């Protein structure tokens, strides 16, 4: 089954990205195909230039781990530009997408889970 998880809120300030990562991990373990769609402020999650304090989690690294295990990471391109982020610094495996890819995921995936904002 293909499961999409869409996040909107910024990482670190709120829990959505963490919940999505944990559900993605469980879905991958069960053999599902997983896509994560990062919309609005959640696009900050792929910025590998983040410097969290030592005892904190590194969210771009957690996403890289999911990508290494086959998860697709979609970044809303316009949202990325609105925050002035650099695709060169994005988590390896994350790809600039947009509304066309969101539409394809909504049309073709089996489940589309949104974290409301």
């Amino acid at each position: 089954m293909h499961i999409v998880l869409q996040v909107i809120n910024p990482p670190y300030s709120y829990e959505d990205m963490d919940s999505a990562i944990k559900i993605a991990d469980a879905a991958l373990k069960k053999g599902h195909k997983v896509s994560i769609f990062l919309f609005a402020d959640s696009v900050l999650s792929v910025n590998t230039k983040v410097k969290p304090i030592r005892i904190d989690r590194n969210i771009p690294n957690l996403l890289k781990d999911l990508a290494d295990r086959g998860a697709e990471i979609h970044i809303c391109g316009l949202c990325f530009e609105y925050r002035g982020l650099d695709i060169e610094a994005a988590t390896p495996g994350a790809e600039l997408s947009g509304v066309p890819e969101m539409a394809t995921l909504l049309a073709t995936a089996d489940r589309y889970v949104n974290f409301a904002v």
Partner: protein
Amino acid sequence: MKKVLFAVYQSPVGSIWVNEVFRCVFGMYAEDIEPAVLLVRDAVIALNKETKPEHLGLLPLSTTFKYIERYETKVYAVKECLDWRKINEEDIDPRWHAELISEKDLPKLLHEYDTVLWF
């Protein structure tokens, strides 16, 4: 054909979600999707002719009208939420082509869609 409802409950002035939802909806027609928009709670003030985020320098809502007409996008709004915010039927800009529904019909409407995304 997948049925997808983009539902907004937050204010169209002071949050970006009504603008973002319409940007998404207009991209759905490239796929085998039947999209719709639901405006509820503060989001319903988008329908008022006098609502102008651009007065604050924010993105306008009126850029959506030509696409709503081109795609015949279905826009629902909850009547009780309009009443509570003192918006009468004659205040509503006809270019939204909005269908007013009663709040008691929301559970049925939400269950008609394969995916409901809340903003």
